[in-house]
């Protein structure tokens, strides 16, 4: 089996599991919806952190912006938003019909993504000139600042949060949001797979490897960085839009601009292996399953364990699962036209060259 075929069959299998999953385990449907969204978040962090080499602590900004924008749009198509949020919890007078819900979602999710993208372009113009840890800390500061601002803005419910539209009886919420999450994840995975097969990937990898050289070679580094961040924000924003509906309640600190989820994105990508397509996907799955187990069995101490987990992953497994697979079975990563023995030979040759270079 060559590499391309392996790729396609793995994707098909993943999507097939996604489609039949709800029938197999109907009790966990909300968790699975979250898992798909987490895959989108990890992939979208990785395009900046893994592929472009800009480690952002602030992708949670786009998650929150998407969430609030979508909720405001969903409410706004039917009721005045200020009255709705002032009623705290929607009250009983704000009723939505099925049709209004569908219109709201169809409008809100793309709007959430686009608004996040617009924000990414503005913030990118400010921050993307910084390198390394300055960029990381600046995005961290911005994320907390925006959470504080959201918590002080009455229009979107300020500190007491905002309830997403209550679904009428005939809509099964978890199922609807599960399939929306699945659709977004499929879209994101296919899009990133396509994007990483184009020259754009080489351009952003050049930025990661040596930005000054890339610039000297005539790459439009700023434009590429901005594009990568805008794409990242678009998908993160849409994931946020669905996540808000899934949780049913948007709190500025605990849901929308939740610093914890901001760290999870990074952790999932690193755990799986930065800078690969499959790394963030595998990382998200492994992380999500272990997180659910932590949350169930560690009763209160899960967040302490989470901190420890971050330290362990970062210090001991910085290459992630994909990095381990790559060193264990290098022929799987040989150039697409080589396979089997030829691939092994090519990998061995690379190793020899590396050793020669090291010696």
């Amino acid at each position, binding site marked *: 089996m060559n590499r391309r075929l392996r790729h396609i069959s793995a994707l098909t299998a993943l999507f097939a599991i996604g489609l039949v999953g709800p029938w197999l385990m109907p009790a966990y449907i909300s968790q699975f919806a979250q898992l798909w969204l987490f895959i989108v978040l990890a992939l979208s962090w990785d395009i900046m952190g893994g592929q472009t080499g800009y480690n952002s602590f602030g992708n949670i900004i786009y998650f929150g912006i998407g969430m609030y924008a979508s909720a405001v749009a969903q409410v706004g198509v039917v009721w005045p938003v200020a009255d709705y949020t002032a009623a705290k919890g929607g009250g009983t007078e704000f009723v939505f019909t099925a049709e209004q819900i569908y219109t709201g979602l169809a409008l809100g999710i793309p709007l959430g993504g686009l608004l996040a993208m617009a924000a990414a372009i503005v913030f990118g113009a400010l921050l993307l000139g910084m*390198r390394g840890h300055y960029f990381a*800390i600046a995005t961290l*500061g911005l994320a907390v*600042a925006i959470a504080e601002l959201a918590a002080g803005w009455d229009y979107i419910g300020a500190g007491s949060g905002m309830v997403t539209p209550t679904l009428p009886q005939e809509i099964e919420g978890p199922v609807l949001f599960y399939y929306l999450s699945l659709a977004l994840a499929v879209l994101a995975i296919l899009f990133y797979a396509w994007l990483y097969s184009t020259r754009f990937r080489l351009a952003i990898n050049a930025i990661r490897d040596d930005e000054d050289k890339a610039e000297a070679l005539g790459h439009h580094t700023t434009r590429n960085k901005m594009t990568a961040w805008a794409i990242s924000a678009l998908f993160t924003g849409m994931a946020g839009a669905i996540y808000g509906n899934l949780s049913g309640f948007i709190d500025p600190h605990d849901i929308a601009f939740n610093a914890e989820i901001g760290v999870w994105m990074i952790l999932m990508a*690193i755990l799986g292996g930065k800078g690969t397509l499959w790394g963030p996907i595998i990382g998200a799955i492994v992380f999500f399953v272990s997180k659910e187990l932590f949350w169930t069995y560690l009763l209160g101490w899960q967040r302490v364990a*989470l901190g420890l987990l*971050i330290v362990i992953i970062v210090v001991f497994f910085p290459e992630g699962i994909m990095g381990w697979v790559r060193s264990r079975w290098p022929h799987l990563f040989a150039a697409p036209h080589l396979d089997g023995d030829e691939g092994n030979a090519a990998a061995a040759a690379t190793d020899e060259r590396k050793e020669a270079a090291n010696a």
Partner: protein
Amino acid sequence: MQNLQLLLQAPVFNIQLLLDGMFIGAVFALAAFGMALVWGVMNIINVSQGEFVMLGGFITLMVVQAGLSPLLGIPVAAVVLFVLGWALYRGIIWRIVEADMFTSLLATFGVSIMLQQLMNEIFGADVRTVESGLGIWFLFDGMVTVTQIKVLAFVLSFVIGLALWLFLKTARLGQAIRATAQNARAARILGIDTDRVYAATYAINAALCGAAGALVVMAWSIHPYMGLPYTLRSFMIVIVAGLGNLAAVISAGLGLGVAEQFAGFILGAEFQLAFVFLLLVAVLVARQVMLARKRQYLK
């Protein structure tokens, strides 16, 4: 904006804010000394800085619960944090000294989450404070109140800063720390045990933060989630002041404290933190714009 008019009409409020800002700013500077030290010597941005401050506060709380004088909390917190810093270095930090910046950033972030949640589990998420047992001075016919513990915090920050400077200049270990900061490889060749130097540096940083935390819990208040703002304030102070300039660190700390008090009063307390973080972003963007003119980058 009503509060702004109030400030213009009653200038005495300005004095109150200015004093409060300078008192807390001195404590910010204390934590920033440690951050500058670790950054300069080990090339690590220690994100768990604010958590060390928080731990110092909780240790003082424990000292008081044990029935001892709260002022005793300052040295006790410093010593306990020194040991903790040393242990953290031996357990985790030594593995990431040579690693790239992002690894150390994320690893210390993990440490900070761990400490913060540990304290949350043990002491709960409530805001805590400790009665220092010192009095209050009233100035301007009682219009301006100054608690003596804040003055003590202010003075102690200066004294500790001065002691740190003397230590780095004259003590054997201090000289070894400076040598390692200049060139770790050369220092190693000349027989300096850089591993020990790093451990000492990290432990001294933790001790400084511990002392700061003891002052914070007496003069203001603490809670398990207060860490990140303190970390980012230290970071901001170090960026503005540069590494290895203690006088600049103090003045940047005082400036930040004053700016924060005024912003909190004028914009409302709920926007004080947002102001701090936006100020951080603004400082970084301003530095970036200045450097970009010379086609350099913040890195």
